[in-house]
Every structure is written in C-alpha cells, then in structure tokens.
C-alpha cells in the first residue's frame, strides 16, 4: 500500500512538472510504473521505488537501482522516451557516502551531474543489459515521502501542488489541498483498476481545478467590496442550485456572455468590467429571474448570477491558457 501511495504521488509531481507539454498520464502502464505521454508524442517514463523507512534503511536501494535501469532500458526500446527517471523517496539512492549530499531534499539529478563514483555505480548496473538505456536521458529524482503522518508524508507533494496553483494566480484559499485530494483519489482509482490501460488525459486532470475555481460558494474579494459576506452567504445558501443552473445552462449563459461582450467597460480591468456589468445590468434579467423575495435579495441574486457567469468564463480561459489546454 505504501508503495502504491508513493507511486500515485510521484505521478502527481511528475505530471505537474510537465503539465504544459502533457497529453496524458498513466499508472502501471504497458511500459513503466508511470508514463507521461507528451504532446510531441514522446514519453517520460519513470520507475517509482519507495522504501518505508527511507531515511535509515538503505539495504535494498542498489537492488532497486539495478531493477529500475533494467526496466527503463527495456521500455526505452519500445517508445520514444524524452526522459528516463528513477523516482524514489530514499535520500541515499546509491547507498554511497560520496553522493549523499547530492540527493538532499527534492533533488533532480541528471546522470551527467553526478559524481564519478556515482556514475560508476550506475554504469555497473547496466552491465549485462543488451540494449542499455541512453544515460543522457537518465536522471534520479528524489521525492521525500516518509512516516504515517499525512501532513509530513505529503508535504513535498503539497508544496508542488501549491506552487502549481500559485502559478495559475487563482487566489483560492484551500485550493491546493482540495486539488491534491481529488488528484490522489482520481489517479488512485485509475491505478487500482485491473485494466491498467485506462489513461487520464490532461483535461481530466485540469478540469477539477476549474470546477473548484468556478464554485459560487466562494466569494471573490472584489465582490466583498460590494456585498456583505453574510448577505452573500445567505443568497448562496438559499439559491445555490438556481445560480448553478443559470451558470451552466447554455441557453442562458450564452445570452449573458453576449450582453457582456456588448457592454462598454473602457479602461477598466477585466475583473472590474465583470463586476460593473453585474452591478449595472441586473435589471435587464429581472423578468427571467423573478423570485418571490425582498427587492434587495432579488437584486443581489441576479448580480451574483451575472458576475458568476462572466467570472467563470474568464477563469476557464485563464486556467486553460495557464496549462496550455
């Protein structure tokens, strides 16, 4: 179980590092533990090797290394591999004093960047392999991953997810953790199916971010200048499913997007124009969105719907561009 958990998280880390060029991701694939197919049809193949007591137990690391370079060599014969990676949680993957400091923390070391002695150990492992892997493509990556405490165990994975989210510039509290949970479960479920040929495409991985980013329950800071938080929460609590429906039903949101497109918000930022549109144009939608409430709530409801539709459109565009989807 520990080994598979590591494999899942290693896949997440590798996926995030290559998200822009990624086409699909597969666990327990035909060629390797982790296979990342890139848009240029090349592959990044990775062997995931974990040790439960990684910081003290180095007995099997050499054997792991030997097995890894063997399967990576075989796999690299079958597909056009861009990178061949041994990803492990051991801080001393060669069990060698000379390279211990080299693999400190979440290290990424190309073969060429390793000390001579380390290179020698790897070359020794390739002895007897008919078609050994191309050492220029080979690298050892360390993903610190130890203990039963989830916070400690996933801290580097979490950091990677947070960095990725940070780059998207979404400013959504708790997004990293939620996303990590969804990804861990999504990929995990994929991996446990008997048929390992099920592949996760980039869109499957990215859309959960969009779902979270477009959730109306979260109130944008910009809206808070206009709405009282409790007023916003009250409207969402009462009308969430109506708001969701309006944001999702194309016959309605297409109309709103058209009106927004026609709306003149010269010289204003995108976000400000979006807010202005919602605040000024809400009355146009009163006949369609009339509900039996006090005028203030009615006004707020329509403004939230309009703002959410336009904001969601902007967010979707933004995230898709950010990850090159």
């Amino acid at each position, binding site marked *: 179980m520990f080994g598979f958990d590591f494999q899942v998280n290693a896949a997440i880390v590798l996926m995030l590092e290559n998200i822009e060029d990624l086409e699909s991701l597969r666990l327990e694939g035909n060629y390797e533990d982790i296979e990342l197919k890139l848009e240029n049809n090349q592959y990044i193949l990775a062997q995931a090797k974990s040790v439960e007591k990684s910081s003290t137990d180095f007995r099997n690391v050499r054997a792991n290394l030997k097995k890894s370079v063997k399967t990576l060599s075989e796999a690299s014969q079958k597909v056009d591999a861009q990178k061949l990676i041994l990803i492990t949680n051991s801080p001393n993957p060669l069990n060698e004093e000379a390279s211990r400091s080299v693999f400190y923390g979440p290290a990424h070391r190309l073969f060429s960047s390793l000390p001579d002695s380390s290179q020698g150990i790897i070359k020794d492992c390739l002895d007897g392999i008919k078609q050994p892997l191309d050492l220029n493509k080979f690298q050892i990556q360390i993903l610190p991953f130890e203990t039963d405490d989830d916070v400690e165990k996933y801290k580097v994975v979490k950091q990677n997810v947070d960095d990725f989210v940070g780059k998207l510039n979404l400013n959504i509290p708790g997004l990293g953790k939620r996303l990590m949970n969804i990804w861990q479960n999504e990929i995990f479920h994929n991996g446990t199916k008997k048929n390992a040929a099920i592949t996760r495409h980039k*869109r*499957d991985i990215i859309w959960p971010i969009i779902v979270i980013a477009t959730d109306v329950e979260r109130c944008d800071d910009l809206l808070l200048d206009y709405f009282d938080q409790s007023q916003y929460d009250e409207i969402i609590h009462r009308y969430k499913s109506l708001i969701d429906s309006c944001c999702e039903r*194309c016959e309605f949101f297409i109309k709103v997007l058209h009106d927004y497109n026609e709306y003149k918000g010269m010289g204003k930022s995108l976000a400000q124009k979006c807010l202005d549109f919602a605040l000024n144009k809400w009355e146009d939608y009163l006949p369609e969105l009339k509900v039996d409430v006090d005028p203030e709530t009615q006004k707020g409801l329509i403004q939230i719907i309009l703002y959410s539709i336009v904001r969601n459109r902007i967010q*979707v565009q933004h995230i898709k561009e950010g990850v090159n989807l």
Partner: protein
Amino acid sequence: MIIRTVYLKEGLFERRIDFSPHVSLVHSCKNSCGKTTLLRFILHGLGYNIPNTRKINFNNCEVRISIECERYGCIELCRSNSISIILVKNGVNHTYVLPEQQHELQEQLFGVNNADILNNLLGAFYVDQEKGWTLLNRGIVIGSIRFNIEELIRGLSGRDCSELIKKENRLLNERQKYNQMFSVALYRESIEEDAGSVAIDSYEEETDIELSKLIIRQRQLKAELKRIDQTLSENKRFKQFVADMKLLVQAPDGTTFAVTQDNIVGLNDSIDLLITKRKIISGEYALVSSKIGALEKEKESEYEQQAFFQTASQIEIFDRKILRIPLNPQAIKAQQSRLEKELKAVRDEISSITKNNNCVVASISDKIIQYGTELGIGNKETIPQNYLFTSNLKELSGALLHKTAFAFRLAYIAEIEKKLNVKLPIILDSPSGKEVDHDNISLMMEILKRDFADHQIIIASIFEYNFDDPKKIEIEDRLINEMMEIQ
C-alpha cells in the same frame, strides 16, 4: 316535497303505505311496533345512511318511495342495499352510488346543489325520537349525519368559506399532532426524571447524529446529480440543435464561416465542466453512501446483539428510543398556543363571514323568537338575537328544551322555504316524549296547523293529535305484515 307512498318488502312480506299530502299519523297503541322503523325506512329510501332498528336490517329489505318534488315532479326511488339507489324519473332509471353520489341524488329531490345546504336538510325536517328533541343548532341528527347551523346559513346566504374551513381542518390536524407530541414529551421527561435506570447510550446517539448528517448530505448530492444530468442533456441537445441549423455568419472583416457546435463561446467548456462536476459529486456520493451502509450495518449488529442477549425488555428499548428524540415540552407548548391562536382567528373569521350582516340570520332569529314566544319559552326581551348560535344547552331542560328544539326546526324549515321555495316535509318522531304536557303539545301542533298547512307532516306517536282529517297509519304488532301473493 311530498311523500306519496312507501312500499316495503322484507322476504316474503310486504306493505304499501300511502301518505296524506297534509298530515299523516303513524300510530300504534303499544310501543316497539315499528313506528320509528317506518320513519327510518323513509329516510333510508331517500338515500340517507340510517342505522338499523333492533328488529329490521334495512339491507335485507327493499324500499320504494314515490315522491312529488317541486322541481322535477313525480319521482320514484328504489333502494335494496346500502351502496346504491335507483331513481326513476320520466320512466328512465338512474343509478346513484352511495354515499359518493348522495349530493347528486339529493339535488334531484330538493332541486338544490349547494353542499352546505344539502348536508343540513335532514336536521331541519326530521326530528329523531332520541337525539332530535335535544338538537338545536349543532350535533347529531341520526347515526353519523350531523347538523350545523353555520353551514346551513352559509349555504342559504350563498357565502363560501371552503378555503377557511380547509385551513381550519389543517390546523386541527396539526394541533392533534402537537398534542400527541406533547404527551410523548411529558413521557420523555418522566423517564428522564427516573434517573439512572435508563441512560442514553451516547455512542448510539452519536451514530444516529452522524447517520442523519450523512443521509442529508446524500440527499443533497443526489439532487445535485439530478440537476447536473438535466442541464447536461439540455446543453447537449442545444449543441446538436446548433449543429443541425448549419448557420453561416459573417465577421466584421467580411469573412464568412459556419457556426458549429465547437465555435460557440463557452458551450463545450460548460459541458466539460458539468462532466467533471458530475464525476467529483458521484465520487462523494459513493463515499457517503458507503459510509451510510457501514453505519447501518454497525447499528444492525448492535440490535441483533441486544435481541440475542435479551438484556433489554421491549419497554427499555422503547424508552431508549424515546430518550433519543429531542423533544422540548416548552417549545411544543409554544407551538400549541400559536396554533390555538391561529385556529381562533380562522374560526372568528368563519363566524364573522357567516353571521355579520346576514339577513338569513336575522330572519331565522325572528322566527325563533316568534315561535319561542308562542310556546312560552320567552319573548323578544329574554331571547337574544344571537340565540340561534347558542351553545348553552345546560340552562334548558325537559319540556323547555323540547319546545326550543321544535321552534328552531320550524324556523329553519320556514327559512328554507323562503330561500329555496322548497316545502320540506316535517317528520316528527314521538313529539310527546320528555313529559311534555298536553297543553304544550297543543301549542306546538297549532303552529304546525297554522303556518305549515302546506307542508306534509308525518308524526309517529302512540298518542292521538288534533288535526283536521289526518291520515292514520296504524301499525299493529309488526310493520311489514302482509304476506306476498305468490304467482
């Protein structure tokens, strides 16, 4: 309406009784010969649900009644069971299912279709020997048939309170439930006071709370999934619709291009978003469902253990369950008093719609005062205008109550005649009961002779009454007494 003849058949015996259009006296020298039975046969034959008498089961008999109505002329009614009746009008048979079509049947007889009036006609024209002489304005006429003066007045004056009455019934229903809750709450308190003997199992309580939370979440997720599926299929249909239209549009720079399902801004994104949302929510739904399953299994095994060891008696298990229901007697009490207030307001409104500025009320009251004065019950000063609605029967006793009941009935019949132009028959069972002396009976009969000479009057009694040429129907030993001729 005049009842001409009544034909009765029970087994091999039969009897045909002709009634006078004026006064008929059903007489026997002894008690328990069948006078009351005959009157009840008439009502049964008119389609009412009447209880049997000790000697005769109506369902084993056939009743045919010929009547003459103000509106449709001669009608014949034939009833031989409790669930249907045949009406023969102009030689055509019409079957009515009872009690479902009772109003339709009575509409044919009385020429009125207002349910408020029809429900209360019997209480006006029939005075039962037991209940009848104590019934003034509200109560049981006979069996399960009731009389209500407010309802009759609303019917006669065309005022409709059906919505308010529905509301009143709803409130009554709620009040009944709160009353039950209140007694459970008191019971719960009494168990709580019985300290130590039954303690709440906090683990079970926690499990229950957790389970309810999960069930609520499961329900929310299910609704969300349903909504998403619906939107998804609508959006896909729209996408197909757009694709099928094969529209061409021109951009401002003059280039022409086709509108396809893929170049509508936001459409594909919305579908992708919904698919992903569905996946995430289904995941959560599966998780919540499996948690619910696990908790239920856990609870089940606990109950099995309890049953196996027989450690807890049924009462203990019941008490534990009651203790787990969070009931606050004070809060329930508050709800009860709120309901009482609401109920009172609704009833006041019904009453004000019924009574205020209603000429029917004034007219009936005047008649009651007039007959009351003649019968020596009181006079204009002592009988108040709203006496019609009195609920104080305790102050009336014996002959006074008897005469008052009589005065009320006559006032109703007079008003019905005035409003609907229907002369109801007056059927009195044993008007001389209750130790009413001869003078009082004479006063009552004088009024009938004077003001209701045009009405058919049928009186059943062991006494004789002083009417001009009454038709006497003598009953000896048994009511249906003629052997049928076997052909």
